[in-house]
């Protein structure tokens, strides 16, 4: 997995994991979310447009990241979610707390 980070404002961030989000990559992503939130970017959008596959470890990193962001008074939201990732979110009912948004802008605009 390759991970790109963009910091549009001092309190927001976009993370773009590319490739397969499985066990090893999940640790990298979780560490990146923790660091981003610790730096004051409390509102994190994870852009999954180029994430090919998400397994349970990947989902664990996203939910763990959501907890960290919320604990800091912010939020973690998903954008550009593909079919496989959507299946995992729906199966586990996690789409109720990690709502998929169509675009990154939509994710930032959501309440």
């Amino acid at each position, binding site marked *: 997995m390759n991970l790109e980070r963009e910091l549009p404002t001092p309190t927001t961030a976009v993370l773009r994991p590319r490739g397969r989000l499985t*066990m090893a990559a999940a640790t990298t992503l979780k560490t990146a979310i923790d660091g981003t939130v610790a730096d004051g970017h409390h509102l994190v959008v994870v852009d999954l447009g180029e994430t090919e596959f998400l397994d349970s*470890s990947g*989902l*664990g990193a996203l*939910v763990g990241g959501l907890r960290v962001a919320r604990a800091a008074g912010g939020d973690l939201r998903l954008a550009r979610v593909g079919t496989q990732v959507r299946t995992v979110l729906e*199966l*586990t*009912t*996690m789409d109720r*707390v990690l709502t998929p948004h169509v675009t990154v802008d939509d994710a930032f605009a959501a309440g």
Partner: protein
Amino acid sequence: MLDTPREERFDRVVRLAQQLFDVPAAFVSLVDTDRLFYKAEVGLGKTEAPRAGSFCTVVVEDDEGIVVRDATDDPRFAASPYVTDDPNIRFYAGQPLAAAGGHRVGTLCVYDTKPREFSDAESRLLRDLARWVEKELVVEDELRRAGEVQASLLPRSEPRVDGFEIAGACVPAQQVGGDFYDWQTVPDGAVVLTLADVMGKGMGSAIIAATVRAVLRSSSRRATVEEALADAELALESDLSAAGSFVTALHARLDPTTAVVHYADAGHGLTLLRRAAGDHERLAPTGPPLGMAFGDERVGAEVTLAPGDMLLSVSDGVLDMLDGSLDSLAVLDGVLAGAAGAHDAVERVVDLTRRQARRPDDVTVLALAREG
């Protein structure tokens, strides 16, 4: 480990040794009563040799290992068949290998057909490579034991319930995994069935799976399925959070007198209800995975099994073997068409795993059928 197939993790060490010391042969041998088994080798072209007269027999007894610059000058080996005959060894260096308990099991050796020097630095290098091989041997041993313990935590026999058939199977992708299934008959005569899948795979997930099983077992004896899940979640919360993990589970309770199955599904969502009439439906989760609740209260749901109906729950490893999407469940339903009962259904799913060249995730299946 004797007579096991070649493995890359050992092969790479002997390839490296052969290149580093520029010798014709390097190998890992395991010493048996009267023979040497070559677990990895380059330049030998065989998997075993007689132990009598071998250098390895001496090396395995020696704490420091040995270096023989010219075997024809060494009284221990000058008459050895390995020196006087093929492969006509002259130079030989070997290090003993200890297994998990510290007992010696074999050697890492290099040889040449002409005499040569071997510096202290080269001896140290060979010793380092031997420690590497030992580490691989220990990992293997620990994983094998862990796999045995985990297998012993699965139910050994099915509960006998008049009018119903129950079956389950678990095929870990590695020696151990994070999936399990379980069942028990509780004091009021009901049968409680569980299929759970811990995030990730391998040893870390297996440790958590053992804890989840124990907690669910004790919380299920008197409570309803949703109360049992809620209790288990409370007990496991801090452990799951510390490990950054979560668990999906189907937890169900069959009342054999009414054929009603009361269930709670914690973010699992991979349970099929196959009706005798031929149609099927997926039982949707009744809540989030354990360790992922954001203040939700656990709720349950009910289905009644008519004669010939079957409930079948699988882990997501089954989904990955098909196309990974929910459409897989329709494919799975096709695989189960005409299944004679719970055992036949479980066997059909396990059979799918046998046809996979590479199975990245654990595969677990649990079936409950009402006789027709």
